[in-house]
């Protein structure tokens, strides 16, 4: 039978109702409880008028209730949209508008945020609010449809579901270069294909205790959740605060006896940097997986030396191709710190092509654009046919006209033994701490600030390190002399925190190249020079007291 994602839960709840499915803040939830709660909430959504393919915004922090909300949305044949509740109001508002949500599921912890959204007109009739706990009082412009006590009074049988495997299951929003976030549509089948492959490849079982580290709007979390449920295992959800201190994270892995860890490399790198892992640590851990960006080899060596009994797999894939498209197991601890780790081979059912500008395959070893096709490929961006057409193209090497390939924007080469290696990007997208950031989105936000006449964003980083610093240079409108503090205050209202520049430079004008375009290499050099001077100053001892940003540009403050 062709399955939908919520069928995975129903199967486990029938098979092992009392087994623990999820643990959050030491509270376990069984498979049957998860199934029944999501059945009831699914009924509440249908009862409130939700129909097939309606979008449900999840204005929820990470907890087991958020998992209930996901499964409930699917059981009601709806599409859920996890919202980053730390994002600025304006960005959440754009996302809600873009996906024209029918319902917002909220909780007491997000009630203040919800009321701010209501005050901004982002949530109003006919959009209704459903509470997954006792909730709170709403501003009068919004309609509250049900609270958790209403939900609990409903039957716990599964609601009727008409969803097909190729129907969208969720929409994940990522940074957009024009300043508008893009909604990547992911189907039930997209996730199920990956989860099935991964279940076999990683030998996942009901004995597994799986980490739930990334935020729920990250596509990595999709594997944690549905991989766990498909295997009948346990997911151990972490609060964002647990991630702040590397030693606390290590305590979590140790105390919960996790068997699988999956995160962006930055987290593992921090744990290595602050030596949070002991020799032979985490005896229960079987496998460690990372995805989202390059794992610096020195940090990988640190981990592999300490955990000789753990397998290490590098997964690669943009959100548009669902969790991961390729994998590479690092069998031997690299001897050389400069050793390059490939992104490997396509997962089963996936296709990876390295092509030139005319979409012809390049020869082994030559650089080209990396395209992805296959079963994990998203149908495209929600309500955005132009951007979808731009990057999802017909596959010129398939006889099936509906086959498509996605231009990842990554530059790659294929080695003689068929392994794919990443080289860089063909655009200005960067990864910082695993977050995907279009520098164009930051520039668009800066240009929207009233006192800004011109702005450019560049990235500097230490050679061989994944520590990247987002730097912005800007020109104030005449007579305004916008300070970095004032500029940052403006940007806080539109940009997520992870996109916030860390270095600021006020200039009289941006440097231009011969073609009249912003001379980004020159800007990068200026920032690198300043950063290097600052580093030298630190090496000389405690820094001198900072002076307020001089009104005579150029100057730089952090």
């Amino acid at each position, binding site marked *: 039978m062709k399955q939908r994602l919520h069928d995975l839960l129903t199967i486990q709840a029938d098979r092992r109702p009392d087994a623990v499915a999820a643990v959050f803040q030491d509270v376990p939830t069984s498979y049957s409880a998860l199934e029944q709660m999501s059945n009831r909430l699914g009924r509440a959504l249908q009862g409130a008028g939700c129909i097939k393919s309606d979008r449900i915004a999840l204005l929820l922090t990470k907890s087991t209730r958020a998992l209930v909300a996901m499964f409930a949305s699917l059981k009601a044949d709806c599409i859920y949209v996890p919202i980053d509740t730390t994002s600025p109001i304006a960005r959440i508002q754009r996302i809600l508008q873009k996906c024209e949500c029918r319902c917002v599921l909220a909780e007491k912890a997000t009630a203040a945020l919800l009321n701010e959204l209501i005050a901004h007109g982002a949530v109003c009739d006919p959009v209704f609010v459903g509470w997954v706990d006792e909730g709170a009082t709403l501003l009068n412009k919004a309609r509250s449809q049900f609270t958790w006590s209403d939900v609990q009074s409903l039957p716990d049988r599964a609601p009727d579901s008409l969803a097909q495997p190729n129907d969208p299951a969720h929409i994940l929003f990522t940074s957009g270069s024009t300043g508008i976030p893009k909604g990547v549509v992911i189907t039930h089948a997209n996730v199920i294909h990956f989860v099935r492959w991964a279940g076999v490849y990683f030998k996942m079982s009901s004995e597994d205790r799986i980490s739930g580290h990334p935020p729920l709007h990250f596509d990595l979390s999709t594997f944690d959740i549905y991989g766990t449920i498909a295997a009948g295992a346990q997911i151990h959800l972490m609060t964002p605060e647990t991630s702040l201190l590397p030693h606390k994270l290590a305590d979590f892995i140790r105390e919960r006896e996790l068997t699988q860890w999956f995160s962006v490399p930055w987290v593992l790198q921090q744990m290595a940097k602050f030596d949070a892992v002991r020799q032979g640590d985490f005896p229960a851990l079987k496998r460690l997986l990372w995805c989202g960006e390059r794992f610096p080899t020195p940090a990988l060596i640190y981990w592999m030396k300490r955990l000789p009994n753990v397998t290490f797999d590098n997964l690669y894939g943009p959100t548009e191709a669902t969790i991961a498209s390729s994998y590479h197991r690092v069998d031997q601890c690299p001897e050389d710190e400069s050793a390059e780790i490939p992104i490997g081979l396509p997962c089963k059912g996936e296709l990876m092509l390295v092509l030139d500008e005319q979409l012809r395959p390049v020869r082994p070893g030559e650089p080209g654009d990396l395209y992805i096709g296959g079963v994990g490929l998203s149908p495209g961006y929600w309500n955005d046919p132009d951007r979808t057409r731009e990057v999802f193209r017909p596959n010129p090497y398939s006889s099936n006209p509906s086959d498509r390939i996605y231009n990842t924007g990554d530059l790659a080469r294929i080695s003689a033994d068929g392994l794919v290696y990443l080289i860089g990007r063909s655009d200005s997208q960067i990864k910082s*701490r695993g977050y995907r950031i279009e520098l164009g989105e930051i520039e668009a936000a800066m240009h929207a600030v009233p006192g800004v006449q011109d702005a450019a964003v560049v990235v500097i980083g230490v050679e061989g390190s994944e520590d990247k610093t987002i730097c912005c240079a800007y020109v104030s409108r005449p007579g305004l002399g916008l300070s970095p503090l004032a500029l940052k205050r403006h940007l806080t209202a539109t940009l997520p925190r992870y996109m916030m520049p860390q270095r600021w430079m006020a200039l009289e004008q941006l440097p231009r190249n011969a073609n009249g375009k912003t001379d980004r290499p020159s800007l990068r050099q200026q920032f690198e020079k*300043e950063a290097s*001077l*600052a580093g030298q100053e*630190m090496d000389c001892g405690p*820094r001198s007291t900072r002076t307020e940003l001089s009104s005579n540009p150029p*100057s730089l403050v*952090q």
Partner: protein
Amino acid sequence: MQENARNEGPTQLTREIAQLIHDQLLVEVSSPEDDLLASGVLDSLTLVQLLFDLEHRFGVTIPLEELEIDDFRSVNSIASLVQARSSANHGSKRSEGRIRSVFSEPALGRNAGSS
């Protein structure tokens, strides 16, 4: 820092910490009781930067492995941490003011650089 907890005025130390956050992270903290974690002033990147800056500014060693999340909850809790670390360091060898890291990567320091 107009509003202060109970009847206590801002101490010199809390003023300096708020100023450090203002200068290094470009964030104005309105009260020494403000929750810096809930408001997102401190995240996994800025927290390590701030640690580094505190070590340099106050000449203390702050061993990361001994820290609790709540040590960074507010300017007041950071002040208590700095005070506790000052007494711990007092009389012993003067602090090098470095967060211990197994790599010699200069990235942390440089990212937290000043003009």
